[in-house]
């Protein structure tokens, strides 16, 4: 009676867990897997559901997954009755807001999981708002109550204030010890509404995740809204109209289990043998080819890159390997886009589009780790729309494409940002946002100690060093979330960096007019320390068009000779010379100036160190 394809929707509860990184979502999920008996003690391993190594190492979940768990209620009105719980895991980071929203759309309820020692964080808050927008029933849960530093009463007040419930409505659990978890499962059954759909209507299922697997091709995770999908059906993707044979259909529990069908309210997976997640996109609606639904489910949108960066192999001969690696990653990442690009300074590479900084860094790290590539990435930039006085318009994803003619207006992307901070740091946060051209949109005290600040900020200001600054000005206490909210006109200029009179495309940047001077001075100074002295004096200039705004000089090297070279020194000196010649081959030539790879890497590294901090 609870088999896939034959489960009464009234017996189904679909929920997700909204939590900040480190607030214990994976550990709580582990306990649920054990309590419901879908994973035995013997099979249990920590963070069972996090598949990729990178995820497990960083303690974050990038790809969601759905687990079907049987549960017989232990106490209360449904005691002794059996239900099917579908736990839909959600990605936990700002770059994946859209994926989160689709996961939420597959649920009727959400557990708002908050660390009882830390309280709610901005990202959790943002996802909570998303859940509320999706009309999800929220169950507030305080986790880690076993910790000595836990302050469940204090944070229960805060949560109650946020979602408008009583502090006593907040459940208290410990994912680590398992305390309170069974009660939480009972409460999910009691509180979360059962899914509602039309079993007789043409089938409509929402794709909330799509994962490429080398052995099985693309595995698509769906929530059936109306009708029924059967294993022998031919299915159709409503956004493209493409039809596919179903090879397999089933549920995850937590390993894949084949099934004959999926009915209203059920969550499961489909396999069609397609090799590219672009053919099975998150947010799209699956229907039956022969009896298609008329209208797709709402809310679909194409993933749109927000941040661009050039990726170049340090060893130019790795270019084909980089292309192959990107082709492979693309199979599993509908949001990754790239096209070949040539830089005078860095050689052949790819201009890649990402959902955000974390996305960029995950891709970069996977390229380096899984494909053994050494890469240089250029400073990330956003997408600008440039209107010319003659009425033409350019979309600029690379500063070197910035048009040189008469410009009428430049538009830059802006985001709606939420900052949660202890109230002591409100001034510091406002100062930072002000300096980053932010417009204050609202401010709320969540409690006497904690404040929510809402700003509209240029995305370009956020991808440059913002998070780092926020953390350092608030002793690490503030948290940040943001989502794109359109474009605004801005007074921007392109700053070029010239080495010995030659512009270095990799260092060009589009910055606000008021900050151009600072950027120019900083970059010139940094390069001065990074580029070794040459046989001639090398001027480093920062310029807007033909106007030089900053200048540094690398003094000419005056001595490059070993004092002694007698009989015993000859072999050693020849080896040294051979080594220096090898080193010279790894230099990039900018005109006559030899620039070591390391200088490019270091000069372009600043924003990257920020993302590194971000994941901690």
């Amino acid at each position, binding site marked *: 009676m609870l088999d896939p394809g034959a489960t009464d929707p009234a017996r189904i509860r679909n929920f997700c867990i909204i939590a900040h990184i480190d607030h214990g979502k994976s550990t709580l999920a582990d306990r649920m897997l054990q309590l419901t008996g879908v994973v035995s003690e013997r099979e249990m391993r920590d963070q069972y559901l996090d598949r990729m190594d990178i995820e497990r190492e960083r303690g974050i979940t990038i790809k969601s997954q759905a687990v079907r768990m049987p549960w017989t209620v232990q106490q209360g009105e449904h005691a002794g009755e059996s239900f099917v719980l579908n736990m839909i895991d959600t990605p936990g980071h700002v770059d994946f807001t859209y994926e989160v929203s689709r996961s939420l759309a597959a649920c009727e309820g959400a557990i708002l999981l908050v660390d009882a020692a830390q309280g709610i964080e901005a990202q959790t808050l943002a996802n909570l708002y998303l859940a509320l927008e999706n009309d999800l029933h929220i169950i507030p849960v305080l986790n880690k109550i076993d910790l000595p530093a836990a302050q469940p009463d204090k944070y229960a007040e805060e949560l109650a204030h946020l979602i408008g419930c009583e502090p006593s409505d907040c459940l208290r659990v410990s994912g680590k010890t398992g305390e309170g978890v069974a009660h939480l499962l009972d409460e999910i059954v009691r509180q979360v509404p059962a899914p509602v759909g039309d079993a007789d209507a043409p089938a409509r299922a929402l794709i909330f995740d799509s994962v490429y697997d080398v052995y099985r091709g693309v595995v698509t995770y769906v929530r059936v809204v109306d009708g029924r999908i059967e294993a022998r059906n031919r299915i159709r993707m409503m956004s493209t109209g493409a039809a596919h044979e179903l090879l397999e259909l089933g549920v995850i529990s937590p390993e894949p289990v084949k099934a004959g069908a999926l009915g209203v309210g059920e969550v499961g997976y489909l396999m069609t043998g397609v090799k590219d997640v672009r053919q099975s996109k998150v947010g799209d609606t699956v229907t039956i080819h022969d009896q298609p639904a008329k209208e797709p489910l709402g809310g679909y949108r194409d993933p749109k890159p927000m941040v661009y960066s050039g990726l170049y192999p340090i060893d130019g001969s790795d270019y084909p390997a980089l292309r192959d690696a990107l082709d492979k990653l693309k199979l599993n990442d509908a949001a990754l886009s790239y096209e070949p690009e040539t830089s005078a300074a860095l050689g052949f590479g790819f201009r890649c589009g990402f959902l955000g900084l974390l996305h960029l860094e995950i891709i970069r790290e996977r390229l380096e780790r899984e494909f053994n590539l050494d890469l240089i990435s250029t400073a990330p930039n956003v997408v600008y729309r440039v209107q010319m006085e003659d009425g033409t318009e350019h979309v600029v994803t690379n500063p070197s494409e910035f048009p040189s003619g008469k410009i009428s207006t430049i538009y830059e992307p802006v985001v709606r940002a939420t900052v949660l901070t202890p109230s002591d740091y409100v001034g510091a946060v406002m100062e930072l946002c002000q300096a980053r051209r932010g417009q204050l949109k609202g401010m709320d005290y969540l409690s006497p100690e904690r404040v929510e600040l809402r700003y509209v900020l240029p995305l370009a200001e956020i991808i440059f060093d913002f998070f780092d600054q926020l953390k350092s000005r608030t002793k690490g206490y503030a948290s940040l979330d943001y989502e794109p909210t359109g474009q605004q006109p801005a007074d921007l200029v392109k700053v070029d960096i010239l080495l010995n009179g030659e512009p270095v495309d990799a260092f060009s940047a589009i910055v606000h007019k008021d900050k151009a001077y600072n950027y120019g001075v900083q970059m010139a100074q940094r390069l001065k320390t990074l580029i070794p002295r040459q*046989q*001639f004096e090398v001027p480093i200039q920062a310029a807007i068009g033909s106007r030089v705004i900053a200048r540094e000089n690398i003094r000419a*090297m*005056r*001595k*490059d*000779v*070993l*004092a*002694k*070279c*007698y*009989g*015993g020194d*000859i*072999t050693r*000196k*020849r080896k040294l*010379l*051979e080594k*220096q*010649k090898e080193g*010279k081959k790894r230099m990039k030539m900018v005109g006559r100036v030899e620039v070591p790879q390391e200088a490019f890497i270091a000069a372009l590294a600043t924003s990257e160190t920020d993302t590194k901090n971000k994941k901690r």
Partner: protein
Amino acid sequence: MGEPVPPDGALPAAARASVGARGFGVYVHVPFCLTRCGYCDFNTYTATELGGGVSRDSYTDLVLAELALARRVLDGAVPRVATVFVGGGTPTLLATDDLARIIDGIDAAFGLEPDAEITTEANPESVDADSLRRLRNAGFTRISLGMQSAAAHVLAVLDRRHTPGRAPQAALWAREAGFAHVNLDVIYGTPGETDEDWLHTLEVVTGAGVDHVSAYALIVEEGTRLAARIRRGELPEPDDDVAADRYLLAERVLTEAGLSWYEVSNWAASQEARCRHNLLYWTGGDWWGVGPGAHSHIGGVRWWNVKHPAEYGRRLAAGRSPGQGREILTDTERRTEEVMLRLRLADGLPVTVLDPAGQAAGERAVADGLLEATAWRAGRAVLTLRGRLLADAVVRSLLP
């Protein structure tokens, strides 16, 4: 590093066949010092560092044993010896009679040319008028004194034990003893040395009436006490720009005193005053290096002896070559060395040694003022004064 040396020290036939084509010399290493100087990474040992089994008294016998081995390896087909250089360490820690036995041993093994140049290094404090006379009588024709500086505080940083006036005094005694050729070794750029200190040193050098000067920028070698003191911040790190200025000062003062450069770090009063032994190194000549850690070159084969005197002694006692490793140079390596070494000489490098790309790079170096334009047009690559300071960069640009 390198390949092993055969136990009997045998050389490839091709190397033996060409020996002496560009001159033949003998280097004798004397690995003893009374104390170790803070900047020195040479293969030398104080009595306490030496351990058992080797002594200064028995060392001469080891040298003679290696000379006998050299003669066996070269199988009698040896040109006469044009130059001998006894270096160290501190050669004058050996008794003059022992140094005389070594010269006689070389003569017996290979035959010394009648006008052979026979040099020994000496520390100023280890010689006096009498010992210098005896060295001259033993057959030495040239003496090289490790003066380093005329500033007491610089000598102190270098751990040198002589007083500032001792080196010019020793040079005077040497000339009185009949040495036609006397060299003073000086070092610039020592931490704490000022421009004035260096100028004063140069004036003392030129006032000493010697016909040869070697002036080196201080090199802070890894693993020396000096390197450790700099790392700990006790002494400032030598600065390349300062070294460049001091080099220019040396060039000016020495030239005005009638000494001209003939190698990047060497100046001589005349053609005859140039050190023929060192020129052998720089022009692809052959030499046998005797002693622990000594390097040799015969016909495109470079090898080096084991470093520790005790192991060196054990091998020779067992009738085996003390060679630790060797490399047989490829044609490319030989050409690299030729460019690397000859470009440092005032006589320069024949342009024809360079490949077309190297010649194009040479043209650019002329345009950049690093190579002499007139010499280049006459078919030789000769460094300008600025080029001398950037010699390694020029070498890199000339080679493929």
